[in-house]
């Protein structure tokens, strides 16, 4: 099936890769290592937030309310204060991130059937963690109020005052809201982009640098055969790296693929084709491995990290930056990956993504083979 001239190139590439332990390590081990690093370090989960409580009421009702925070795993009571002025120092030194001030009239107002107010102070230095913490506090206050209302209605024997809105949020796809689940698909894209582009760019530039390309050029090998022979080994290795990442993320982060493996494989192949095309394109421009390496890093690492939605949500970016993200292939790949891995969606939901990846692959492979033809 394989053209007789592609086979020797594929065999040769595999031999060279197997002899170059460092490259092989970069291709197979680094992805898993990065996954572990990113998976544990890049954690947006808000948990065990250090909390200070200043209970000025010192009643049963106020104690009960403060206790409700301690029963959750989200907060960690670090300090009980008698003077609200102490909060300033504690928060400034980052010893607490949330402080709860219960006013002296808390229980009095509740018993009187009136609304009671508590003050919540949040360290907003880390905006996203602060927002999450505020959400938690709000939910707990709500929960506590409804308990009080139910108890009150039971005591009076009157039918309960219906709560205006019964608020029962439910999170889909990632119910525990674990950031690892959100990050794993992004990491696959990030890692594949970097390794695929760098490895192909280097493999061609190495031949230019060492002059072996000359011997290829005078042989009857056609550019297409050279490109296929060069990319097939790296596609196989990148797919192996993807499998390793998925396995590691299943074992460590409990991320299981919900959708079809075939679709996952297909989309990954499409993305890889574009990435390899980009690597080849770089190799036609760069003359030394060093230059190729830097160029590859520049065009893959930053855009994929910053502009793909891997870590930073695209909708929060300024409009001009959002416009730029439309030409970052990883953006489309990530949407597709998250869809397949977390949501289990089928191809019908991912047409746009697949189409863009296809166009990107066609563009990079087309331009690079046209440029290679000039060299060959």
């Amino acid at each position, binding site marked *: 099936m394989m053209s007789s001239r592609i086979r020797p190139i594929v065999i*040769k590439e595999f031999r060279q890769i197997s002899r170059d332990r460092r490259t092989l390590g970069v291709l197979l081990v680094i992805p898993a290592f990065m996954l572990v690093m990113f998976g544990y370090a890049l954690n947006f989960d808000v948990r065990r937030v250090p909390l200070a409580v200043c209970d000025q009421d010192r009643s049963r009702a106020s104690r009960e309310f403060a206790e409700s925070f301690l029963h959750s795993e989200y907060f960690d009571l670090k300090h009980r204060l008698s003077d609200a002025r102490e909060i300033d120092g504690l928060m400034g030194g980052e010893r607490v991130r949330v402080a709860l001030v219960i006013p002296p009239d808390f229980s009095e107002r509740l018993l009187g059937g009136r609304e009671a107010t508590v003050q919540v102070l949040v360290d907003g230095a880390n905006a996203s963690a602060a927002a999450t913490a505020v959400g938690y506090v709000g939910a707990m206050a709500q929960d506590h109020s409804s308990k009080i209302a139910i108890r009150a209605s039971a005591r009076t024997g009157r039918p309960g005052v219906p709560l205006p809105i019964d608020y029962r949020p439910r999170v889909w796809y990632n119910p525990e809201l674990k950031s690892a689940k959100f990050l794993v698909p992004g990491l696959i894209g990030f890692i594949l982009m970097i390794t695929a582009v760098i490895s192909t760019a280097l493999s061609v530039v190495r031949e230019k640098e060492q002059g*072996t390309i*000359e011997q290829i050029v005078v042989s009857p090998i056609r550019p297409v055969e050279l490109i296929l022979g060069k990319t097939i080994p790296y596609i196989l290795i990148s797919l192996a790296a993807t499998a390793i990442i998925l396995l590691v993320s299943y074992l460590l982060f409990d991320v299981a693929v919900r959708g079809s493996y075939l679709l996952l494989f297909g989309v990954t192949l499409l993305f890889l084709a574009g990435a390899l095309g980009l690597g080849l394109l770089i190799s036609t421009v760069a003359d030394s491995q060093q230059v190729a390496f830097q160029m590859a890093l520049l065009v893959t690492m930053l855009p994929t990290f910053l502009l793909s939605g891997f870590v930073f949500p695209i909708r929060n970016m300024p409009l001009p930056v959002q416009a730029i993200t439309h030409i970052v292939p990883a953006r489309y790949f990530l949407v597709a990956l998250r869809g397949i891995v977390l949501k289990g969606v089928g191809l019908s939901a991912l047409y746009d993504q697949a189409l863009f990846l296809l166009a990107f692959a066609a563009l990079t492979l087309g331009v690079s083979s046209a440029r290679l033809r000039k060299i060959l």
Partner: protein
Amino acid sequence: MTASYAIEVKHLTKRFGRFTAVDDLSFTVRQGEIFGFLGANGAGKTTAIRMLCALLSSTSGTATVAGYDINTQPEQVKARIGYMSQRFSLYEDLTVAENLSFFGGVYGLSNARLRERARWAVQMAGLKGREQSLTRELAGGWKQRLALGCAVLHEPRIVFLDEPTGGVDPLSRREFWDLIHRLSEDGVTVFVTTHYLDEAEYCNTITLLQAGRLIASGSPQALKAEHIRSPILEVECDRVIEALDLLQREAWALETSVFGTCLHVSVPDEEEWRRQAQRLLAENGIAISRIDRIVPSLEDVFIHLIEKR
């Protein structure tokens, strides 16, 4: 073989923008001959070779290699030639055997033929028992012979060798030329460029290129006979450059040039010249250790040809 010549070049021209790299080149190469292609760096040798290997198309004019047109049948040309450059384009991180099997595969050799040819190449390069060594561990001479082996693995009838002996020790250079002669005896046409003019003496035919044009062509003997009519004297003296300067000003010295620590002077009348030179140099306080008449080398021929222009 239907073509009577291995290579036929007719009015071959290549321009890059306004620069003419190869200018109206015409020559023929007979089957099985060793054809030396000489010229200074930038004379257009590389461009001409790239056209003959069907890597570049010509701006005008044509050439046929092994009977195929370089512009219209590049694939056929590529499949029938072997090529080796001074950089010994082998994969340093592959073993001797792996390099041979790669190049064999690229030229579409069957397994049986590949085994046979690889055995031949290993024997030829003197690498028996070292098939499993990495190429980077081989010394220059062996690498060069292995590169030649890879280039002729598919038994091409024509081999292009682009400065094959650059950077190799003299002994290896001689052994390499023995291999070239053996190929030629087997009927392979060898098209070779070199910097070393002593190597050019081993060629059956040589052509000299200057600024993209052919300025001389023929066998080494014919070239010497045709271009060197006046005797050449070798002068060994002090302060060679100063002496060269003095002699060049005199009308009775036709051509003067420095050869290592000596001067070569082409003169119309040997006896007369000896007297004149001795007097002139003595007047300027330059001591002469000897003046001898020598057999002209190709180098003398080329200096003569290039100075004439």
